[in-house]
């Protein structure tokens, strides 16, 4: 069973790529319509130098946005848990932030904020922020009733309750939110890059995709797309590993 967990998805992936390559070759589809995976891989290797520089730019924004989202989400959730009034007055606006399509507000942010990289960071942060806030808020409110009584019985202070009871209870929820936000901040960063359309040396992967599209270099477009996919998967796996390491000794999800 353990091996099947890795073997089956690998087989599906190989079958998909094989089928794709076969269709392209059998129908003699020109590369500017649909390149086969072999050509995409070759382009990725050939253009690695320029693509990897762009990947690095996008990754910097992604991680900065994720870190800020995690810190602010956690902080705000803790404040909410300490003051119901604050939660009631601010939570709706967090929802507003979440439901506003990022491509619609990104142009405004890019106009308002002079530094493009800061503008991109803000866009990615908006997308990544909400899952962490809402998950952590849920976690902080999910304390065991009896444990809460126990803390009360021993006269625990507000701070002790937060530090020893509510935060540990919220940790699995926070980590689940972080896993969602990791992928979202990448999506947010790339969506904002599309809108910003910055050129030059310090441009991210989205710009490479647009550029390749204008020049009808479709294989290069696919190579950049594949790079984004791999990066997203890698971010998810890395955050899953962090979650596993922090919860494996005690949490029910890690049995």
């Amino acid at each position, binding site marked *: 069973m353990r091996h099947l967990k890795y073997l089956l998805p690998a087989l599906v992936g190989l079958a998909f790529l094989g089928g794709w390559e076969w269709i392209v070759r059998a129908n003699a589809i020109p590369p500017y319509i649909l390149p086969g995976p072999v050509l995409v891989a070759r382009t990725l290797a050939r253009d690695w130098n320029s693509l990897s520089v762009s990947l690095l730019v996008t990754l910097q924004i992604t991680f900065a946005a994720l870190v800020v989202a995690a810190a602010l989400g956690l902080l705000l959730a803790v404040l909410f848990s300490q003051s119901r009034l604050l939660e009631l007055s601010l939570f709706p606006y967090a929802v507003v932030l979440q439901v506003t399509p990022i491509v619609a507000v990104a142009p405004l942010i890019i106009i308002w904020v002079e530094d493009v990289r800061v503008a991109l960071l803000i866009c990615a942060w908006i997308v990544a922020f909400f899952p962490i806030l809402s998950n952590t808020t849920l976690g902080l409110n999910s304390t*065991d009733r*009896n*444990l809460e*009584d*126990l*803390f*009360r*019985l*021993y*006269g*625990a202070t507000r701070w*002790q309750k937060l530090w*020893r*009871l509510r935060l*540990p209870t919220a*940790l699995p929820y926070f980590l689940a939110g972080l896993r969602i936000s990791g992928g979202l901040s990448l999506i947010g960063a790339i969506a904002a890059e599309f809108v910003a359309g910055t050129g030059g040396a310090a441009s991210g992967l989205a710009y490479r995709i647009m550029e390749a599209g204008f020049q009808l270099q479709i294989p290069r477009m696919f190579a950049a797309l594949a790079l984004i996919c791999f990066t997203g998967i890698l971010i998810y796996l890395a955050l899953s590993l962090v979650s596993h390491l922090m919860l494996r*000794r*005690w*949490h*029910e999800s890690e*049995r």
Partner: protein
Amino acid sequence: MQALAGLDLDIAEGEFLAVLGPSGCGKSTMLRLIAGLEAPDAGTITAPGRDIGFVFQEPTLMPWAGALRNVALPLELAGMPRRQAEARAAQMLERVGLGDFAAAYPRALSGGMRMRVSIARALVTRPRLLLMDEPFAALDEITRFRLNNDLLALWRELRCTVVFVTHSVFESVYLAERIAVMSARPGRVVAQHLVPAADRAEPEFRTSAAYAAHCRAVSHALEAA
């Protein structure tokens, strides 16, 4: 809704009192009132304040902490330095027979062992009053008998007052010096039954004729309620 009415119960220092009654008769509410977790609508409760240990129906352990850290919690909440708190917690874990499981997380312990950790935590502050709310109800009979014996040994050694809420006639007679029988809606004490020390001292009390007679008497009181 009125959970308790006209409840008048004195508990002597060092006594082992069982409170017996059907589900929903307000036994748990009574314990929570004594512990100060709830305030009475009317009447007074005289209890030794913070000097109370509480054992819930469930073990109620922090899943993210090992057995030792769970037992040390009440001391640390009171501001004792961690080292000192853990040293005392280790002694108490030893006392409940879990000396080798200090580092074990609750997930890795059996139901009976978790309850032992919970009892150790309640006793680690050396409370004058130990409140227990059907602590063994969810355990199998063999484990329950063993924990009954260990609880009595601890009580004789530490000499604290115990109020033990249960819905088992057999358990109440085996454990307690005095049994308060409660009835429901509204909850009140309808009868009290004493189990003399001479009977309790009998070897194999659980299978003795005196034990059976006490059980019968308490059952009758419960039915009459």
